[in-house]
């Protein structure tokens, strides 16, 4: 089984050079994506076999590559199996989507070779069981995705996005490298088994936690390390954007979980405060950023930050309860986090695919140039709608279930002894609730502005429905959103072994409960039954419609919109994306984004139009990143003089160095 998995990954790697050749010919992209689809599906199968069979032994293997005296260790435990499912399911969906979408790629030679390598890299990260191969795969993942980000390199902003992305990624990798340096010590015991065995002292472990939070966090896009994400994810081709947002950020989460929950031994109580303190704000800020955007793909990228925040809140809670040895609650929080990992992978891929189809159909990412697409591309619209409802955490879809579980974990936090947590957790809960509500607003805006209302540009008016592969991919994901939403018990049970392995406990078995209800702790405490709610809504809705159409009228006339008596054929009068988010901008933005609105009214009698200029600042960028750039620029500018000294001055340098060293020796 292990061998099979490794062989499949090897196939993916082998597809990379094949991609160069395939990119030359016409059917090349279809062939490559088809191959990727098959391989990833097979990998999903393997992973599922490992995950669903509780009695399944933990697979491991060692290849004589990598560090000579170490070799490359690979291992599939339940956690790895779960993330393998996420990675490869996302990969399969993306490949399926790309079967259609990839046809429209104008420079396939810049995508095809890197795509399978990227998939392979993400797989190896999850599979690897020693620090070296883990980091190799981790950075290789960044590298390949960087290549994909700059695939449309003629746009300067894409190259810039790629540049920032690569810098941040390497920064994260180096942080992880230091973390492993601490864990493995100078001795070079790099395999995870050895690290697990050697229990680091509290201080060391804490240092590792911070380093990992930086390393994995920068990849996952936690605020304030998120700066690269909204630039890089949209720049890539849409199926890759889906992978980066939906899957790669999850691989980052995996890295965090693997090191902090698995390798690091028992947690300190205050770790959870750090994690929560990062996760909560990320959730709220991420979605607020998203609300300020006009670029559909950028909205999605920012909302990824939000969901990563939610996941880390879940993980933080798990840490807190684990530290207090409240295993079953820890299991609840942990399961919630993992379930959200899975859910977000699904609907974020779905949404990016939708945005990609729109991009294909209209050539536009700017929502304010879209509109009315539901008439032109109804199927895409339906799939997108499902995605939007799901990601807004609304029942009966999957997003709600994981957030509901997280809330349940938060409600148990009064039992924690530490005061700091007592105070921070409700606040985080509030942030989470805020994030959920804002997410709904954000996706009403996304869907309403680009799919509903009237077409704002001819491009949008002439849009054509996406091809069948893309639609297939989207509908598979949409269906899954619903299925997870109404049968959450099955998926929660699937996560049990992973939770058991990481927090030493697992949630009670759900699938056996009557009516497929999920009951995290006790029925008297809380329970939710997606299936019943869904059937109720379905039934009462259809009953109502049937009854009304039978008993009352079912006649319908078309007429111009009423609009309170001021109908206007010009689509420009509709609410735009910016005007839609204006109230929220005024409520939250003035502080968080230093958002300002300057309205210039023309003097009475003048024919000039009134102008409204809105300025929104990314304070994180301006406070954190811009100064770094300035410092570098300043230093390089001034140190550069050393290129232009005279030989005598250079000799002086040598002389001074000599004298200094002699002095050092003399004393």
């Amino acid at each position: 089984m292990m061998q099979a998995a490794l062989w499949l990954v090897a196939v993916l790697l082998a597809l990379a050079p094949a991609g160069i050749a395939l990119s030359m010919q016409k059917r090349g992209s279809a062939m490559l994506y088809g191959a990727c689809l098959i391989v990833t599906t097979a990998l999903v199968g393997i992973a599922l076999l490992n995950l669903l069979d509780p009695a399944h032994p933990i697979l491991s293997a060692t290849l004589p590559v990598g560090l000579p005296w170490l070799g490359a260790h690979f291992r599939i435990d339940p956690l790895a199996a779960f993330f393998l499912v996420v990675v490869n399911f996302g990969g399969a969906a993306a490949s399926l989507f790309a079967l259609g979408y990839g046809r429209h790629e104008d420079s396939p030679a810049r995508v095809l070779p890197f795509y399978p390598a990227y998939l392979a890299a993400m797989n190896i990260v999850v599979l690897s069981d020693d620090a070296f191969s883990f980091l190799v795969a981790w950075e290789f993942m960044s590298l390949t995705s960087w290549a994909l980000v700059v695939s449309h390199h003629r746009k300067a902003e894409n190259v810039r996005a790629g540049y920032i992305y690569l810098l941040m990624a390497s920064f994260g990798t180096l942080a992880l490298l230091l973390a492993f340096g601490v864990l493995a010590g100078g001795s070079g015991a790099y395999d995870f088994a050895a690290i697990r065995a050697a229990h680091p002292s509290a201080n060391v472990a804490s240092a590792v936690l911070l380093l990992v939070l930086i390393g994995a966090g920068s990849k996952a896009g936690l605020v304030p390390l998120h700066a690269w994400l909204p630039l890089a994810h949209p720049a890539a081709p849409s199926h890759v954007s889906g992978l980066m947002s939906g899957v790669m950020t999850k691989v980052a989460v995996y890295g965090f979980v693997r090191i902090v929950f698995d390798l690091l031994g028992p947690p300190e109580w205050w770790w959870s405060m750090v994690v929560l303190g990062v996760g909560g704000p990320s959730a709220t800020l991420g979605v607020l950023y998203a609300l300020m955007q006009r670029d559909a793909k950028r909205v999605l990228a920012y909302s990824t930050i939000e969901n990563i925040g939610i996941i880390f809140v879940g993980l933080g809670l798990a840490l807190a309860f684990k530290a207090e040895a409240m295993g079953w609650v820890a299991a609840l929080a942990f399961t919630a986090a993992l379930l959200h990992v899975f859910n977000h992978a699904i609907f974020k891929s779905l949404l990016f695919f939708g945005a990609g189809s729109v991009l294909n159909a209209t050539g536009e990412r700017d929502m304010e140039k879209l509109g009315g697409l539901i008439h032109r591309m109804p199927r895409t619209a339906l799939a997108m709608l499902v995605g939007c409802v799901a990601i807004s955490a609304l029942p009966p879809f999957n997003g709600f279930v994981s957030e509901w579980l997280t809330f349940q974990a938060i409600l148990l936090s009064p039992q924690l002894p530490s005061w700091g947590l007592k105070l921070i957790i409700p606040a985080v809960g509030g942030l989470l609730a805020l994030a959920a509500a804002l997410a709904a607003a954000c996706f009403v805006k996304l869907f309403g502005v680009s799919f509903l209302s009237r077409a704002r540009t001819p491009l949008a008016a002439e849009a054509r429905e996406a091809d069948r592969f893309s639609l297939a991919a989207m509908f598979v994901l949409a269906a899954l959103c619903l299925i997870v939403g109404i049968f959450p018990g099955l998926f929660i049970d699937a996560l049990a072994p992973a939770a058991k392995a990481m927090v030493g406990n697992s949630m009670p078995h759900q699938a056996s409960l009557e009516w497929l209800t999920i009951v995290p702790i006790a029925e008297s405490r809380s329970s939710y039954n997606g299936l019943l709610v869904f059937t109720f809504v379905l039934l009462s809705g259809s009953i109502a419609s049937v009854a009304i159409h039978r008993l009352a009228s079912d006649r319908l006339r078309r007429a111009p919109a009423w609009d309170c008596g001021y109908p206007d054929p010009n689509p420009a009068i509709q609410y735009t994306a910016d005007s839609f988010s204006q109230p929220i901008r005024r409520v939250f933005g003035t502080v968080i984004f230093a958002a300002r609105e300057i309205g210039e009214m023309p003097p009475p009698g003048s024919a000039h139009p009134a102008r409204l200029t809105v300025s929104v600042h990314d304070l994180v960028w301006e406070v954190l990143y811009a100064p770094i750039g300035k410092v570098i620029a300043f230093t390089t500018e001034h140190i550069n003089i050393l290129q232009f000294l005279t030989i005598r001055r250079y000799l002086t340098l040598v002389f001074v160095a000599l004298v200094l060293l002699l002095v050092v020796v003399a004393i």
Partner: protein
Amino acid sequence: MHGLEFDVAHTLAGSLVLASFMLLYQDRLYALLNVYALHAFVLALSVAWQAFVQHAPHLYVTAAIALLFKAIIIPVALHRIIVRLGIHREIETALSVGLTMIGGIGLVALSMVVMLRVTPGADALAREDLAFALSVVLLGLLIMVTRRNAVSQVVGFMSLENGLVLAATGAKGMPLVVEISVAFSVLIAFIVIGIFLFRIRERFDSVDIAALDRFRGERR
């Protein structure tokens, strides 16, 4: 080894340091060249003395080279170059002579300190010689970095190299000494020729840096 030999060697090495100081002090090219000739001559003497003391005849060759090549040919050649290139007589020093002298004294002190840490077990001559040689080397470097004039920088380099030869000959029974001195003479010849060929008038770095920036597109 008994007193007299030691004292003589010591005196010669010391006077070499003294010569270096004189070099440091000079601010006229011709005078500088003459002092250098003296410097080389002292070196020749001390090498010869070493040869005599160590009963190492091959060292006489080194001494001869020092005498002929460094004390006579090179100064003359440089003299003619100065005339040919019409370099003005003044040496503009980057550091005022007074400061340079103080720095020089500091360097000598430093080299003493460094070398006196050496266990007296190694015979005294070597130890003293090394101390002096080190000071000569450092002083040579000091000359190179405080003079703006190509010729005087070459002189500085040559005095530095004299220090090396002093050390090498002081190192009893060290092989390859002659070869090394020859090699260095060749090197110096190269430098001198270089100055002559490339018309490096003022300094090593006479070439206008700004022009180079333009050529290289390395403009700031």
